[in-house]
């Protein structure tokens, strides 16, 4: 269980959000949505211990964040950033870096580590790109590579900041399906998404942010019925039943 208790997040002492209390459970996908500037990424990064909380606490399986060493935390929580610095390494190399938190002092990879790397590459479908430099592949392929790295990290908790950005429609769908598969494996997934439709489609819970706090934390259908979507985004949301399941239209 991933718990945020009365968390205040922000930069340099100025809070962007206050009093956030949320719980994320294994085997569930929670998506954080909200208008630009509401602090979605800030909240996610603070939860993942990349930023210091201004107040409140973060607990993972009962243990406070401060009681974990960086390494221990990284073995439990993986984070996919929204954008990445230019890095000139091969795709395969990048994905192997995902095993870093699990490596011992000698920093050498065992058979199990290598197998996980291969699985991650296969899952993301970028096996053929393994020897290509990151600088020479498209933005979408790069995103897949970083996602593969997060997968290789093999953590029970995955925090993804805009995982489907840059990706074309087919791959977008693929990612959403992948999230479903990961959830079925028992992982807890927390994602920040811009695409509200996709978020509503795939999530078990939606966390709607606004006004310096959590506006709503509910199941997608409940959120749509509640009418807060119109308030938060200024667009009307209609639920549509299709062959594949519930979909949402915005007008």
């Amino acid at each position, binding site marked *: 269980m991933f718990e945020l208790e009365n968390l205040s997040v922000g930069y340099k002492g100025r809070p962007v959000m206050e009093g956030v209390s949320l719980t994320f459970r294994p085997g569930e996908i929670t998506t954080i949505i909200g208008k630009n500037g509401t602090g979605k990424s800030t909240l996610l990064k603070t939860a993942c211990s990349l930023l210091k909380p201004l107040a409140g606490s973060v607990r993972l399986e009962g243990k406070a964040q401060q009681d974990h060493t960086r390494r221990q935390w990284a073995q439990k929580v993986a984070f996919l950033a929204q954008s990445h610095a230019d890095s000139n390494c091969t795709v395969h190399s990048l994905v192997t870096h995902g095993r870093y938190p699990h490596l011992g002092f*000698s*920093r*050498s*990879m*065992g*058979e199990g580590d*290598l*197998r996980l790397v*291969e*699985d991650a*590459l*296969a*899952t*993301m*479908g970028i*096996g*053929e790109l*393994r*020897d290509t430099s990151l600088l020479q592949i498209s933005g979408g392929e790069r995103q897949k590579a970083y996602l593969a790295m997060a997968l290789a990290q093999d953590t029970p908790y995955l925090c993804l900041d805009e995982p489907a950005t840059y990706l074309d429609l087919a791959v977008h769908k693929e990612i959403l399906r992948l999230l479903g598969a990961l959830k079925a494996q028992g992982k807890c997934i927390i994602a920040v998404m811009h695409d509200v439709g996709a978020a509503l489609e795939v999530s078990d819970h939606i966390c709607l942010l606004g006004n310096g706090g959590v506006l709503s934390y509910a199941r997608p259908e409940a959120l749509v019925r509640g009418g807060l979507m119109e308030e938060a985004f200024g667009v009307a949301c209609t639920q549509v039943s299709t062959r594949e399941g519930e979909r949402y239209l915005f007008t």
Partner: protein
Amino acid sequence: MTFSCAKGASSPMSRRPCCPSQDKQVSLVPLGSRVPFVFLSLLFLLTLLGAGCARQESQPARVGRTTPFQFSDDLQRRVLLTKRAERVVALSSSFAQTWLLAGGVLIGVTSDAFSREALGIGEEVALIGTIKDPNSEAILALEPDFVLLSADIPSHLALSALLTECSIPHAYFHVETLDDYLAMLSRLTTLTGEEELFKKNGLDVHQSCTEVLAGHTKGESQSEGETYLLLRAYSTKVRAKGGDTMVGEMLRQFGYTNLTELHPSLLEELGIETILKEDPTHIFVIPMGDERSAKASMEHMLTSNPAFKALGAVKDGRYHLLPKDLFHYKPNNRWEESYAYLAHLLSQ
């Protein structure tokens, strides 16, 4: 030895690794530090081996035919020579000349000694580098038993450790004034045993200089309180020099005051206003590098610059370019000529 993974060998659902040989790549010690560790250990061994060579160096045998001679050099180091110095290397042209004047023989000198024809250094003398950058290997190859070095040049000071390790007696000298020259000549002539050369190239020179000084100051009673400006002209710039230099010391003996003693700031920047205010009686210029271009640089500055043109010294032609071999290089046995030259200029 490169191979690339075949395209299409893996599908998203395939669980077989692409590169089979990867499975074998398990190592307990990281690749990144095992091989270089060996390399660095070899490096260390090499260093230790070299250090080992040091431990086996034996003491030089004592040759005790003549009385060992001990003296203090200008860095207050005790220099001990256990035998006659027959293979001598001098690391500057001035010292080379002083050694020759003391009756010694040279086996190695720096390049500036060869360019000064007056020294008469023959071809049998080895070239061991430049005065600023002497070549330690060339020095060692000559197997000298005495080396003369300058106390003012950093690369000479750095050689001390090497010469000491090789048990080669060496002495540092600092010669600016006539007295410094006499002190050096005295020690060198004791070393060569040619005492009468000290009289000829030392004491007699000193006597002549004293006479020149006496002759000048007797006649010129108004030199009290007179000032002069001493400049060093490079091809690109001109700098003021202080009274502690060789020329400065000589002029002090003539009773003149260096302008920089009244205004030390002139050493950093040639303050025209200060110079105009003080209006020095004489201006002396020492050329550095090529004498011709230094002279041109001096002429350009003094005669084309309206501020300088206004100086009394310039208007009356009391600015003088001093010849290098009497005023830049140490005059050694020609000190009398230097004094006489100055006396002549000052009486204008």
